[in-house]
């Protein structure tokens, strides 16, 4: 099992960017199982696998145990969170907060709980966990993130989590050997199309040792791409074709179901 994983890893190494940490003590080498997820008519989500290894050199202190945090963030978009309130006897959206350029998909995976990996201060600085991730809001004229228990922020994170678009798993990263690791990246069918950044952070003794990045993209191909492009670039023709299709369908039905 380990031998096979190493073999896969070795074959992956060629196409992977190597990230050397400035300290030079450890180095992370990672790759995702698929850098280009193609969306076809029968696409209904996918699960990617992230492989990696911790490379040591002569200066690495012996006997270090490592912790890993993987952050996958999807294409960014502006979102608005609205709150309903009772007004004139009916429930209506009153207050709202705008979240600026926040990830549409966000997954945080680690090999053990964040609290065990690093002290709270480091967790905040390194944005470990959904409660520490920076989600910029527009509050009046200011742009800032707010405290994690802000009602709008927690409602936003909760709703995204319910849709499987934000997730956090504190035991999703598995170490196959003390230096070789893997984790799955589940992508439900609703995940947005675009480029996904994967950031891998290596911790030892509660401090960040090194980090590296990789990425993958979800793209529409073939029929899906054709339709999406047509709708965006040739709106008028697309509309005409759709309207014509509607009339044809209606006409066909009246012929098929004609009694006499």
């Amino acid at each position, binding site marked *: 099992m380990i031998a096979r994983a190493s073999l896969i890893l070795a074959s992956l190494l060629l196409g992977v960017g190597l990230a050397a940490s400035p300290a030079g003590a450890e180095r992370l080498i990672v790759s995702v199982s698929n850098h280009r997820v193609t969306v076809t008519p*029968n696409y209904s989500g996918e699960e990617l696998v992230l492989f990696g290894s911790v490379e040591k050199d002569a200066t690495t202190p012996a006997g270090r145990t490592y912790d890993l945090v993987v952050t996958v963030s999807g294409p960014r978009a502006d979102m608005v969170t609205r709150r309903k309130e009772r007004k004139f006897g009916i429930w209506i959206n009153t207050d709202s907060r705008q979240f600026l350029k926040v990830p549409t998909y966000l997954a945080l995976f680690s090999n053990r709980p964040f609290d065990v990996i690093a002290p709270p201060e480091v967790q905040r600085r390194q944005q470990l966990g959904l409660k520490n991730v920076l989600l910029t809001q527009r509050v009046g004229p200011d742009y800032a993130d707010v405290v994690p228990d802000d009602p709008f922020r927690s409602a936003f994170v909760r709703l*995204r989590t319910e849709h499987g678009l934000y997730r956090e798993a504190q035991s999703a990263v598995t170490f196959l050997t003390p230096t070789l690791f893997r984790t799955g990246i589940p992508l439900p069918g609703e995940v947005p199309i675009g480029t996904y950044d994967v950031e891998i952070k290596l911790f030892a003794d509660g401090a960040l040792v090194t980090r590296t990045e990789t990425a993958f993209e979800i793209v529409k191909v073939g029929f899906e791409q054709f339709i999406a492009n047509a709708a965006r670039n040739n709106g008028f023709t697309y509309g005409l074709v759709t309207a014509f299709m509607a009339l044809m369908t209606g006409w066909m039905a009246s012929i098929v179901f004609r009694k006499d």
Partner: protein
Amino acid sequence: MQLYLPIADIPVNVFLILAMGAAVGFVSGMFGIGGGFLMTPLLIFVGIAPAVAVASVASHIAASSFSGAISYWRRRSIDPLLAAVLLTGGTIGTALGVWTFTLLRSLGQLDLLIATSYVILLTTVGGLMFWEGLRALLRARRGGAATIRRPGSHGWIHGLPLKMRFKRSKIYLSVIPVVVIGLIIGFIGAVMGIGGGFILVPLMIYVLRVPTSTVVGTSMVLTLVTMVFATMLHAVTNHLVDAVLALILMVGGVTGAQFGARAGQKIRGEHLRLLLGLLVLSVGVRFAIELGVRPNDLFTVRETGGGG
């Protein structure tokens, strides 16, 4: 069977969408209403973004109303002249409505206005139709004349000038109220984002005294034209019409509409009005409950724009 929708960007179950299309198509064929007020909430419930749902439903309604209109045409239940005059008013009304919509949005509180007027409109129209249908039914039971064309009930509407003979409907009527009704429907449709068939049908029956036999078919023509324009408008302005979703809905919708139209022809006029009244009323009540009862989740998240 799962299928990924290219514009809505989510996988859906084809058979579920097909069934939804057929069910709404049946209702729409039976009553000559577009059914958008039923279809759009269903699609949103399945997980499709509201903007995509509204845009794609327009083409679905165009298909089912066209298929319905053809079968009504064969039965000579469409009054082309009446439809043309209504459309004249409808076009002006739509333009006015779009202008008002923009104005209201700049003033804020549009959500509140739309929500409350939706409830008021649905419950009032539904309630009145249901009540009238019930009375007509009771009258028929007692053996009285089950007609709504009461003798001597020619009101002020029939005293207006510019009279025109609508042969197919067998009515002699001023064009003024017809244009005004078209205008109202166009206006309401543009402001509230609905086809307006469920308001047009009762207005034609009770105000214009158009016989039930031509009401449904004629209303369908109006819906057809409006929805073809709406499809074009949505496709050109916000590029959110999902042709794949629309096609599935259409195939289900036209099939349903054929059976619906056939069922509609068999049912007696007062029964039809009673059922439509009940349907509109229950949708209105459902919206009212939604507004009045504390929602399970006070928060909602909506994407407002791509950030790259």
